[in-house]
């Protein structure tokens, strides 16, 4: 019998989290390589699962299972792990793939460990090579890629970073949808409703030009250097996570997996090394120019234009030149 790859699809408040589709594409690619089959499972209350399950059932998968319980309406690690653990004992997949979301990060290591397995977290791809399943993931903040393998009989677990596969290459099909009453045991955490802090005053997703600063800016007092360039170009200033953590720019100006995802005409990265958490938030930009003193910085891998040099010399010169050009 063909082995099964199970994809855990994420929904939030009844809406499909679209990064799940990328994981499905990854699963379809792997299945094709080895003659395996893909199944999908969703967790939540009955009302939350109808729509997203329908959407997934229109993909080329063998089966979609709705793992239902009112106790799963609000996400908790205890509830999700108990429900999935019981489900895995019956469905016996060889491989479980999940999108690398904050929710998955919260429970997938626990789920794998509860079955004595290990999760390859934050992968960017997977392939069979000489019969061996290899996952690719970044290490050392993106400075290196690693091919990693898992020993043992499985089930094996891996999560895929956003952008690993293209959601629009999902193969269409028609799958039966099954409903399973989830077995949920004791839930120790009491989650309250998700909320947004004061609405972000800056919508970076609408900006045509973004000047973004990273650790290379060194001190808060150097931020005006970048601001002057942003002003000259008529762009918005943004930053990588550490700059906002330090309070040098407000959190609402953060680009990356925990901030905004942007795709401006021009993304000018100043002193940003390019950790994957930042890259996922900006790699869709039409044109990326990176200035960094470290020629090995991972940001240069996604840059259209690379300038290896000292931003403290280059940025003021560039600001002056832009002003001249604008007259």
């Amino acid at each position, binding site marked *: 019998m063909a082995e099964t790859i199970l994809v855990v699809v994420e929904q939030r408040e009844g809406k499909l989290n679209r990064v799940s589709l990328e994981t499905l594409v990854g699963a379809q690619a792997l299945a094709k390589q080895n003659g395996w089959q893909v199944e999908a499972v969703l967790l939540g209350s009955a009302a939350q699962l109808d729509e997203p399950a329908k959407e997934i059932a229109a993909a080329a998968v063998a089966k979609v299972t709705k793992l239902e319980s009112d106790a799963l309406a609000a996400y908790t690690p205890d509830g999700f792990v108990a429900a999935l653990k019981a489900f895995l004992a019956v469905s016996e997949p060889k491989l479980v793939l999940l999108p690398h979301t904050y929710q998955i990060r919260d429970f997938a290591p626990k789920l794998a460990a509860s079955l004595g397995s290990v999760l390859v*977290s934050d992968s960017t791809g997977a392939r069979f090579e000489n019969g061996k399943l290899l996952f690719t993931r970044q290490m050392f903040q993106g400075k290196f890629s690693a091919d990693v393998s898992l020993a043992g009989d499985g089930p094996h677990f891996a999560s895929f970073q956003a952008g690993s596969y293209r959601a629009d290459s999902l193969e269409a099909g028609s799958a039966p949808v099954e409903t399973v009453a989830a077995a949920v045991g004791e839930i120790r955490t009491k989650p309250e*409703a998700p909320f947004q802090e004061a609405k972000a005053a800056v919508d970076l997703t609408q900006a045509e030009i973004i000047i973004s600063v990273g650790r290379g800016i060194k001190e808060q007092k150097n931020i005006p250097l970048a601001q002057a360039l942003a002003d000259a170009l008529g762009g918005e200033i943004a930053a990588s996570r550490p700059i906002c953590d330090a309070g040098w720019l407000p959190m609402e100006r953060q680009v990356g997996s925990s901030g905004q995802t942007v795709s401006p005409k021009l993304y000018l990265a100043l002193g940003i090394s390019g950790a994957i958490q930042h890259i996922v938030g900006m790699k869709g930009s039409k044109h990326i120019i990176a200035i960094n003193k470290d020629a090995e910085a991972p940001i240069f891998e996604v840059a259209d234009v690379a300038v290896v*040099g000292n931003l403290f010399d280059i940025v003021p010169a560039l600001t002056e030149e832009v002003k001249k050009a604008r007259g």
Partner: protein
Amino acid sequence: MKILVCMKQVPQKDAPLKLNESATWVREDVGYEINEPDAYALEAALQLKEKNGGEVVAISAGPARAQTVLREALAKGADRAIHLEDDKFVTLDAFNIARAMAAAIKDEAFDLVLTGLQSDDYGYAQTGVLLAELLGWAHATIIMQVEAKDGGIRVKRELESGYFQHVEMPLPAVLTIQSGIGKLRYATLIGIKQAKNKPLRKVSYDEVAASLRPNQLTIEKLYVPKKTKQTEVIQGTPSEVAKKLVAKLRDELRVI
């Protein structure tokens, strides 16, 4: 509150990393520092102690050099430290590191275990969650705030796309802490002096070996990421670079 903080020593952020001969790890002859997210976990622990009293214990697994990280934690205000000392800890997968730490603290009664949300080297973001599973405790990840409440805690979790959520849970519990939870403190001169006399318990590999299992995760190969994009390199003096960039912005991108 008795709090354990898991701290890892990682290569310095700007260290020029080179692959070892078998291309399975980096060469060890670089500078090291505290994994930055763990520094925030320590900060969160110290602030909790200042507010609620108790004890802060720092734990690290790694070669002799990792003691630097623990001494730094002690200098910043941790009360004592536990060092699982052996070169072999470097190559353990996250599940085994969690097993080793769980074994090292089995005779202690902690209320709370804090870790950084992920490490700058492996980046698995799993050790805290795995510890929770091994210890049988509740957990929550990517935490921005912690407060004691009704014998338990109430935490603020960061979700994606600018959303947050409060979660209450009983103690003992494990939390992974988001960077930026507080302003990192510096060690004072007095702190550095006192750190030398604070207790540091060493745990050998043999003491925890019975709890370990064969690594399931193997790094087959490390390599410099393949480039997927054609990148144009612009060189010259700052003013030459500025002129070339402006020509590009004006003539090709048409944003000026």
